[in-house]
């Protein structure tokens, strides 16, 4: 069905009882041109762009649980393109531009809200670093504004500007950044891909690969064998496990990141605010809850739940920034398993095994990347060569020494 004001009005008049499912829950066929493993944002976006931009619609997305049950449904929904390094910078800006036209393209309300993000700085050195980042962004055509203390105060008067250890001296603002409704992004891409003929197959876990003379020829799943000319993996925190099924290793560790939601408040926080002196970031959902998070727990994990020291650390960061939240009750906390790559940047490339392609290593910034990742991965699968905007995200960069290390931390995933 197409969504419009008319369809909304008609459904409202009939008590919202006649809405049709927005995408088809398909059963596996014996063979496809392309099988994509993982029904998260990246997998579904890839299928959508394969069908809509590259004319390949004989595609299946296979998901071991239900679509959006991974990180696509458990992140803090921040979208931005305030990256320093060329390579990252271009890529995330392509994503930002795609977000800006996403709802029209998908005919689905993903509640993209460009409320702005401000990264606070607390020292002269940090201001210089943010000025450099802002300049790098502007040189690449991305919007950035360096704010002083009074400009930040006008936006967010409730912050603790005179904190004894970390006084707020200003911030780097990207006005086009913001948030999007994460489940709606998943459903929107599913809706658009399914309409073009893509099969979305749930409760279908990939357990092995079919080989044909050294090439990947399909996948073994819990719902039978599916043959495919090409297979793409977009399995977020499980990339190492799927790569192991195909017989290779990746420059990746899996780590847990926690997030939190408070009880609902009246509108308070204008956009996204990040604490520059520690790791804490916060925004306010449309229902009024504060949505926030901080560091990863810091050790390999597939447990999908975190531990208390990080909860305490995040709460301390929040209290340092806005002491008033000490009176607030926390409603929920949860964890998601992410690929942490060895340089903190993602990988979109062919794998060492012909016929299998890798989309991985999104660390904790992969939600904002969904549109560009889908487009570039679709390009790679369709054409067999990298999309120009994802040329820096090759797998061999680790071996050749062309790392994309935004933080300059080296090969230590828990520090990125």
């Amino acid at each position, binding site marked *: 069905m197409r969504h419009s004001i008319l369809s909304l009005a008609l459904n409202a008049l009939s008590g919202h009882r006649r809405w049709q499912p927005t995408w088809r829950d398909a059963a596996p066929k014996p063979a496809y041109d392309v099988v994509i493993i993982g029904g998260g944002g990246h997998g579904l976006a890839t299928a959508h762009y394969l069908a809509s931009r590259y004319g390949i619609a004989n595609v299946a997305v296979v998901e071991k649980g239900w679509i959006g049950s991974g990180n696509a449904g458990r992140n803090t929904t921040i979208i931005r393109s305030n990256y320093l390094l060329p390579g990252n910078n271009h890529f995330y800006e392509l994503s930002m531009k795609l977000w800006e036209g996403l709802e029209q393209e998908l005919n689905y309300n993903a509640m993209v809200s460009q409320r702005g993000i401000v990264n606070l700085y607390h020292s002269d050195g940090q201001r210089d670093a943010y000025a450099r980042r802002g300049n790098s962004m502007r040189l690449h055509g991305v919007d950035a504004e360096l704010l002083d203390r009074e400009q930040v105060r006008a936006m967010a008067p409730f912050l603790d500007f005179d904190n004894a250890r970390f006084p707020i001296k200003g911030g780097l603002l990207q006005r086009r950044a913001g948030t999007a409704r994460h489940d709606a992004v998943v459903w929107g891409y599913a809706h658009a891909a399914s309409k073009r003929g893509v099969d979305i197959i749930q409760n279908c876990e990939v357990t092995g690969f079919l080989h044909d003379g050294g090439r990947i020829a399909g996948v073994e799943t819990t719902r039978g064998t599916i043959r495919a000319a090409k297979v793409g993996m977009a399995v977020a925190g499980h990339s*190492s496990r799927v790569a192991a099924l195909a017989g290779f*290793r*990746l*420059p990746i560790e*899996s780590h847990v990141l926690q997030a939190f939601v408070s009880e609902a408040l009246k509108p308070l926080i204008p956009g996204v605010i990040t604490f520059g002196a520690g790791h804490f970031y916060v925004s306010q959902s449309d229902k009024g809850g504060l949505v926030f998070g901080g560091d990863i727990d810091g*050790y*390999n*994990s*597939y447990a999908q739940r975190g531990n208390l020291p990080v909860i305490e650390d995040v709460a301390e960061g929040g209290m340092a920034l806005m002491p008033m939240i000490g009176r607030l009750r926390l409603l929920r906390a949860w964890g998601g398993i992410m690929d942490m790559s060895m340089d903190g940047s993602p990988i979109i490339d062919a794998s060492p095994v012909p016929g299998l392609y890798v989309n991985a290593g999104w660390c904790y910034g992969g939600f904002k990347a969904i549109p560009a990742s889908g487009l570039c991965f679709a390009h790679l699968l369709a054409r067999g060569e990298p999309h120009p905007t994802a040329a820096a995200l090759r797998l061999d960069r680790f071996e050749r020494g062309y790392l994309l290390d935004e933080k300059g931390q080296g090969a*230590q995933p828990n520090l990125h």
Partner: protein
Amino acid sequence: MRLPCPFCGPRDSAEFAYLGDAAIARPDAAAPDAPRLFYEATYLRDNPAGPHREHWYHAAGCRQWLVVTRDTTSHEILAAAFARQP
């Protein structure tokens, strides 16, 4: 999560610093394929779901490096020993 330090006893994981996979050994720099071996040791990881032998440093305790065997799917600690022990 608490780690059973063989010297200090069970301690909060916040006292420790994490280094990662304990199976990684420094390659022989004189080996003919040393560049490839160093690349693999620096960047590639098994990253298993299940038991994982890993290095933890008891920074806020006895300052020993430990090899801890931990199940990455449950956070359960299966063993802990000083890193120098065979």
